[in-house]
């Protein structure tokens, strides 16, 4: 399988060249173009009940698509997100990462997707009750509105909740409601996440709630 992500960070899209027999799984509305003889199958995302949970609480779709190359030559499919923005990938070797709902785009078949409880404050802030955990062996592709920027945390960092995309499972998050000093200078819903621990996080340099706040007074 050869993949390349183009158009970063504004309109990232990725081309997947599948060798005969290879497959890739993607979220449901991700296909922009593809070779006509690739097989595409819609599947429920995990078991039926967990798929429902993911839909209502995690913001992920009920379905995923599996693209398989059953021909004898290389075939291409091009996958995108429904919002503009950046995309990147991560190799998993038995480890796991936590993704904000909506950040998942695609993965190879060895990667398992599960749910992690994110807390009520997160739900009220419309960030979703659950975050997605990707684990196993393989590659996971993710994206967000804005550019993806990595930050190293050693101690504590305060992040506007609508800007956090990925964090490592050993880090702890505490989501705080807007109030006090935080409401006036963080954008979006005024919800902040205190990230504690040692590890890497990925933030997005824009958010849909920030875009909404900027646009609303000028409509």
């Amino acid at each position, binding site marked *: 399988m050869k993949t390349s992500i183009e158009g970063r960070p504004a309109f990232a899209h990725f081309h997947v060249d599948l060798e005969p027999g290879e497959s890739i799984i993607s979220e449901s509305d991700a296909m922009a173009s593809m070779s006509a003889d690739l097989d595409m199958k819609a599947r429920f995302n995990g078991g039926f009940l967990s798929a429902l949970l993911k839909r209502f609480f995690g913001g992920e779709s*009920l379905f995923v698509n599996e693209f398989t190359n059953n021909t004898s030559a290389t075939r291409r499919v091009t996958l995108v997100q429904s919002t503009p923005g950046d995309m990147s990938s991560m190799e998993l070797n038995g480890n796991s990462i936590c993704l904000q709902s909506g950040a998942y785009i695609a993965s190879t078949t060895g990667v398992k997707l599960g749910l992690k409880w994110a807390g009520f404050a997160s739900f009220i802030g419309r960030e979703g009750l659950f975050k997605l955990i990707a684990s196993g062996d393989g590659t996971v592709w993710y994206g967000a509105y804005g550019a993806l920027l990595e930050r190293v945390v050693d101690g504590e960092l305060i992040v506007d909740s609508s800007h956090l995309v990925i964090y490592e499972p050993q880090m702890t998050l505490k989501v705080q409601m807007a109030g006090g000093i935080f409401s006036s200078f963080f954008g979006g819903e005024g919800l902040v996440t205190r990230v504690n621990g040692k590890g890497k996080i990925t933030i997005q340099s824009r958010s849909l709630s920030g875009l909404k706040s900027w646009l609303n007074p000028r409509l």
Partner: protein
Amino acid sequence: MQTEIIHNPGSAAARVHLENGETLTAEGGSMIAMSNDVTLETTTKKKGSGGGLLKAAKRLFGGESFFFNHYTAGTTGADIWLAQTLPGDMMEMQLDGQTVILQAGSFVACSAGVDFDTGWQGFKNLLSKESLFWLRVSGKGKLILSSYGAIYPIQVNGEYIVDTGHIVGFDETLNFKLSKAGKSWVSSILGGEGLVCRFKGHGTVWCQSHNAPSFGKILGPKLRPR
């Protein structure tokens, strides 16, 4: 005429440099800045064309006031900066007698030798009223087009499927067939109208990585009611 495209594929703008006497035809509203040795003529028809595009053009662009600006540079030459409304890419195409079918909203500007007409009806039967209109562009000269999303080409050599909301333009030599999503595909799979285009033959399809209505449907509901 020289063209420079910057800030692509996300916030693309084109700087067109015209020499003395050269003309550029650009969609009204696409000019963001210009140096001042330029004469500007605003019409609803293509410069030099016999009939008017009036009615057809208005329908084409959704009935809004539609017009072209014809820029002619004076003796010292001129720079004209062009951009479209939405974030996205831009591309320059050199036409040398071939014909391309272009999504109407992708047209930005062209040089004097390029002709376009609104007569192309290839997708008419299957697309709904709100959907895109198409231009048939031919001639010899430069064509500047834009897209929502990054533009990427597909060299068709066999058969290729493209979601219709992702087509910017394609060579007229290609065969194509439109279809709704097949029974084995869940309808939520595709963004836009759930229509795909199967291209067959040999030629290029210019695709855009994203489609604007998908983004509109995500952003719109978050905004203040109208």
